């Protein structure tokens, strides 16, 4: 587009090429943009109202000394963060979160892969087995927690009964904080390994058969084929599972709430945030600060995974 500029009256009129103005769209671009808005805005509005607004609200609350239920609060800046990181609970909560996340992610993925390998075998009953393995994943965490509590109960639980049968006493799964964590991890892995198994199974079934057959002809045994071909080719699946299971583990709540309501030994970041605000303490601002810490950790982990781990992924 050209534009005529007029200099001083004495100067001869000249025509110059002006740079194109941004923001001027053709009719078609504008039409496309409105279609985009019509399609995206409702969803964006929902995400903004139910995800980003609470997130921003939570960040604001984390700067307040606010007792849940109280109409007033005091702005304290970063005091809640300082109080959390300098409290005696912080190392325990962060440590519990680390142990819970690493073991549940590792356990679910390793066991899920093993189960997927078993389910990938062409034998009778695999359809039923696949359903059975996946079923716990879709069950209510509350129901699962209650049933497993009965199994672990040292007084009259099924496990206690079995142990008594061989002359052993049941460990104090519920009262001992360390065993409580083990108990919750076992149940969490049991509930979630079906998800990993099914995703890995899909990955296994999409592996190129010709490569496997060529490796067999070259004399590679099953273990070698698995380690040298299956595992590298499954790396996109592994990467996907690593991100999703880690986020899921860091957000695990229902089983912990049902099985160990006091959070004694099982208080992860998210459960500590719940206990502080909605448990007996009612420290809403402090709880919001813990939530922000969890959010930042999740963000950092996800960015690191996308930036560094993804480089190791082999996309066929």
């Amino acid at each position: 587009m050209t534009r005529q500029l007029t200099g001083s009256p004495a100067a001869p009129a000249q025509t110059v090429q002006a740079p194109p103005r941004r923001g001027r769209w053709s009719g078609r671009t504008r039409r496309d943009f409105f279609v985009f808005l019509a399609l995206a805005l409702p969803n964006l509005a929902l995400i903004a109202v139910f995800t980003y607004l609470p997130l921003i609200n939570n960040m604001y609350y984390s700067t307040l000394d606010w007792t849940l239920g109280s109409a007033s609060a005091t702005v304290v800046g970063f005091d809640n963060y300082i109080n959390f990181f300098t409290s005696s609970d912080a190392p325990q909560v962060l440590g519990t979160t680390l142990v819970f996340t690493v073991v549940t992610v590792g356990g679910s993925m390793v066991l899920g892969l093993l189960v997927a390998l078993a389910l990938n075998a062409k034998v009778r009953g695999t359809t039923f087995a696949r359903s059975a393995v996946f079923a716990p994943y879709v069950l209510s965490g509350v129901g699962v927690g209650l049933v497993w509590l009965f199994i672990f109960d040292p007084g009259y639980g099924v496990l206690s009964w079995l142990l008594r049968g061989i002359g052993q006493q049941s460990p104090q799964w519920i009262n001992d904080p360390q065993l409580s964590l083990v108990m919750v991890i076992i149940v969490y892995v049991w509930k979630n390994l079906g998800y990993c198994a099914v995703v890995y199974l899909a990955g296994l079934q999409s592996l190129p058969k010709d490569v496997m057959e060529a490796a067999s002809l070259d004399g590679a045994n099953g273990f070698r084929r698995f380690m040298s071909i299956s595992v590298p080719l499954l790396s996109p699946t592994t990467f996907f599972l690593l991100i999703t299971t880690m986020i899921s583990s860091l957000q695990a709540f229902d089983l912990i709430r049902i099985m160990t309501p006091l959070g004694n030994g099982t208080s992860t970041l998210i459960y500590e945030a719940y206990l502080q605000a909605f448990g007996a303490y009612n420290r809403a601002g402090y709880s919001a600060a813990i939530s922000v810490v969890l959010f930042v950790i999740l963000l950092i982990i996800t960015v690191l995974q996308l930036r560094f781990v993804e480089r190791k992924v082999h996309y066929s």
Partner: protein
Amino acid sequence: MAMNLDRRNFLGLAGLGVGAAALAACGGPSTGGSVASSAPSDIDFTGVKAAGSFDFWTSHPGQSQTVEQSIIDKFQAKFPDIKVNLVTAGANYEEIAQKFQTSQAAKSALPGLVVLSDVWWFRYYTNGNIIPLDGLIKQLDFKIDDFQKSLVADYQYANKQWALPYGRSTPLFYYNKDHFKAAGLPDRAPKTWQEFAEWAPKLQASSGAKYAYIYPALAGYAGWTLQNNLWGWGGSWSNGWTFNCDSTESVTALQWAQDSIYKDKWAGVSSKNAADDFAAGITSTTISSTGDLLGVLKSAKFNVGVGFMPGGPKAETNVCPTGGAGLGIPSGVSKEVQLAAATFLKFMTEPENTAAFSAATGYMPTRVSADMTAVLAKTPQIKTAMDQLAVTKVQDNARVFLPGADQEMAKAAAKILTQQGDVKATMTDLKATLDGIYTKDVKPKLKS
């Protein structure tokens, strides 16, 4: 993907940030200045007409949903213009408190009447979430002198009445009569824990039960029941606002409890519910709420005995804490709703209704004039709970007035009773925690 942050983008982002911050500041609590820590102390209900309906939030203590509904039905017949909506607002006191606090924060959907437990009502008071009932008690003629004095006194602070007793309980000593008989023991609860320590080996030898005694589940209300041990040894969680849980007496009491598990090996700790463990025959004795009485009597396949809480070397009586729940009226609802709720509250706590509630649950009648003849004829064990009322004591401030203290006490008890932690060190840590909670969360809100 590279992103060029030019002036326009920067201004856009800055605007978004400022907008978001402004939006965030719109919700939540006020930070503009201090707000009164409690509701107005005198509310004038003159000329107020009761609302046509209100919600009654309850956790149905003692599985009381049926009896609650029947009382509501009777109320509707008498007051057809006031509809009471019975709302299950949680499975226990903690869940109902969580829902209530969340509604306070959201400033919406508040009930007209709410069940509040012994460890929650004070927080509602300091947050200004409930109204004083004095004006309504006078206006509606509640006959407050007919209420059990110790139970009414539990909800008094700053010369005001903040709630009235409802599902009120105390701990009771439960024992398996058959086990006691087999062990050649008298058919009664022990007078002191020392006496029980002598009985315990006999019980273990003859009963076949895993434990002679089981401590209540720590995830329940360990801070409540352990007051019995602390008081018996001359200790406590606190004396007024002085937290003396690390005193020699308190440490000795809890050391004795630890020894009963690890040294003498006749006691255990319940994982979930001591009353269930007792009814299942896992233990010969336990202490549990009076609210568990009917459930135990129904499920136990043996003769159940109940008795007063045992004393200790320093105190043989007055070692039983009060407990349970009351009913309060939120400040965040209209006067019309408050008046309607108070009308129902008066009806709910009338002698015949408290007797009906007691008969259905095992909780204690809150009115002196409640006719318990029929109830006692059917369940004579309730008489023990009623008689014990005369020797109950108001709980330690630390447990009922400090937010989160009950959980901290349970954690400390877990360390001592399930991990054999050092008692003195654990109690010293607990004292520091309680001091911290008091200084930060309670002291600034107390009226001088």
